[in-house]
């Protein structure tokens, strides 16, 4: 069936922006790092999203490499991919500034019901950095122990009338 009738609008074709679709279809930095400097896993399968980030950090505290694995929806995959791109080559302090807002903006936005996925990416980076800090007995300014489940207490979005 060809899309005739002049109806579909390419932008509307998916609920996601083109950038999201690109990162979903061609995710950057998928995989594992052997003996990573830090690794963090967040989310839980009950909610349908799990994100794991591996970091390879050099002696100057620069993130040399970053890989991810994600079980989750299109937005979860795309935010993981974008988050790894954003932290790669950055210093630890710079990586701390890769917030969910930054990831979302870099992806040209997410549909409202998917905004929580970008939170997951931020948390995954923080979890991996926490692991790195623990292993190396250092303290990273602004970094707190990751929650075991970032979704807890979150409520299904209520319609606003």
């Amino acid at each position: 069936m060809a899309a005739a009738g002049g109806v579909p609008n390419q932008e509307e074709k998916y609920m996601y922006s083109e950038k999201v679709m690109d990162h979903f279809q061609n995710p950057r930095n998928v995989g594992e790092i052997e003996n990573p400097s830090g690794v963090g896993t967040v989310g839980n399968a009950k909610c349908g999203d799990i994100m794991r980030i591996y970091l390879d950090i050099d002696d100057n505290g620069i993130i040399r490499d970053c890989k991810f694995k994600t079980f989750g929806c299109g937005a979860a995959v795309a935010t993981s991919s974008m988050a790894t791109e954003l932290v790669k080559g950055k210093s630890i302090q710079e990586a701390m500034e890769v917030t969910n807002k930054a990831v979302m903006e870099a992806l040209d936005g997410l549909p409202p019901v998917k905004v929580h996925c970008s939170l997951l990416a931020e948390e995954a980076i923080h979890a991996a950095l926490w692991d790195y800090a623990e292993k190396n007995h250092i303290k990273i300014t602004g970094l707190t122990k990751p929650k075991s489940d970032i979704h807890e207490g979150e409520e299904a979005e209520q319609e606003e009338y």
Partner: protein
Amino acid sequence: MSRLIYLDNAATTKTVPEVVEAMLPYFTEHYGNASSIYSLGRDSKEPMNAARKTIADVLGAKENEIYFTAGGSEADNWALKATAEAYQEKGKHIITTKIEHHAILHTCEYLEKRGFEVTYLDVDEFGVVKLDQLEKAIRPDTILISVMFANNEIGTIEPIREIGEIAHKHGILFHTDAVQAFGQVPISVDEMQIDMLSSSGHKLHGPKGIGFLYIRKGVKIRSFVHGGAQERKRRAGTENIPGIAGYGKAAEIAAATMEERIKKETELRDYMIGRVLKEVPYTRLNGHPKKRLPNNVNFSFQFVEGESLLIMLDMDGICASSGSACTSGSLDPSHVLLAIGLPHEIAHGSLRLTMSEETTKEDIDFTIESIKKIVERMRSMSPLYEDFIKKSGK
């Protein structure tokens, strides 16, 4: 039948070809479920969003204040029942009028059986709601005022802006059944302070089986049809995309042609009223002479019964109506005509003629001649007319 003059546009209208055209792609081609994630489904979202925007624009509303329903009746039921349910803590009193459509009246009766109190406002001889009576009817426990925008039988347009003002002055929600008015006359939900508004597609050359309820942001009514998360979780049921697309197109056309149409129809309407009142004796115009829908004419011909009149007109190729089409299964004379003070036998002799853009002066002239001939014939066989003539000594 060689010629058909359709003058029952208040009952339903022809779905115009442009509307059918707008619907067709969504049957066999872009038929996906609008709630699905794949692109075929998302193809259906677009016409829905577009129709919502078109309709919202016509009303001066926001897109997310338009909720599609299966028609005017569902919209009316939803507005009344869900308001009753949501606001019953505040009170159980509703104000409406004696001339509402049955979708409102029977819903009110249903609510009355469930502990709600309903005040049915009188109307004057022209069918206009009495504003002082409305003010007096308001009580601390009044939660809703529901007054139709324009009456489906006699075409009278109600003082909506004034009613909206009174409602809001007292902090009461205001619903209007605009099934006959939407697309026919200008409506602004903000200027008129309307909180909820019902409409039905097939009254403005859109498809049957689709309507909407406008719900102002902040009005906390819930679903009438429970189930899936469609319509922002407020109206369950797989979206009727062809219907919605068709309705959007119909609203678009109606808005674009409204000004010109009002001018043309008003002229024809007043021409018909003038001629019939002059040329057919013992005839009265029902409804307000000026504050009426541009396409509505309603007469009562004394000594003549409506159904016979309709069949005879039909044999001349003229489709018209006597009282509301929705109630023609019933034998009771129209509650609207009784409310404006007509005696039963005169109410029985009523004729509603409602035009569309397609109606021509030629159609009207032909109809007037037909009416004259039929009324004369029916009077000649009416015992009421016989008595009247004998009594008046002619």
